[in-house]
């Protein structure tokens, strides 16, 4: 079991109703961590174009989660 900080942005923040939370998890990768977040937050849903970052670096969904990581869940981006 490890402890990570999870942050939600834009529509994900509105769907969960929170900016961030501390989570105790055994998730083996970031995808599994997002699945757990969906189980906790009814409004949160899969977005195929969603992105994820760990400790301010863009990451792959199958990257592993580490103790104390700050994980950023980004809904599909729309700059410009």
């Amino acid at each position: 079991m490890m402890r990570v900080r999870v942050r939600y942005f834009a529509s994900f923040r509105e769907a969960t109703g929170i900016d961030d939370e501390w989570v105790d998890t055994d998730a083996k990768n970031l995808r599994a961590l997002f699945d757990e977040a969906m189980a906790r937050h009814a409004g949160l849903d899969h977005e195929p174009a969603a992105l994820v970052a760990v400790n301010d670096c863009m990451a792959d969904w199958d990257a592993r989660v580490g103790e104390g990581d700050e994980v950023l869940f980004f809904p599909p981006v729309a700059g410009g």
Partner: protein
Amino acid sequence: MSFSITDGPIDAGALRALVQDPHCGACVVFEGWVRNHNEGREVLGLEYEVYEPLAVSEGLRILAEARHRFGLSGVACVHRTGRLGLGEVAVVVVAAAAHRDEAFRACRYVIDEVKRRLPIWKKEHYRDGEARWVNCRHCVAADSEGLAAS
């Protein structure tokens, strides 16, 4: 090479001055403007949410890629955050190169990657009072307590 996020009006002239270089024969500028319609709906304004630490580092990475790929002399980008009204400039990209082909391709590359990769989100406010995060498949239209009501 310069990438920044601002909550005030973008000074396109200052950005252009950043890339000026006597070796360059061509400069291409892209400006994104807030337009009054999207997908058939009348837009009153929009707001950007930007996660700055990563937007800036990833933005600089995009500029470095463009410089490397296209042999650019200078390239720079500024993106707005916060609320914008119709006609306001949301983003500016400038690219200067010896010849125009490189300048056009680099400028296009930067704006395409900015839209695809940077942690920036856009919420449009419509005349009918609704507001919606753009590009978000599942999001229900948010309520109207935002810009559209102000």
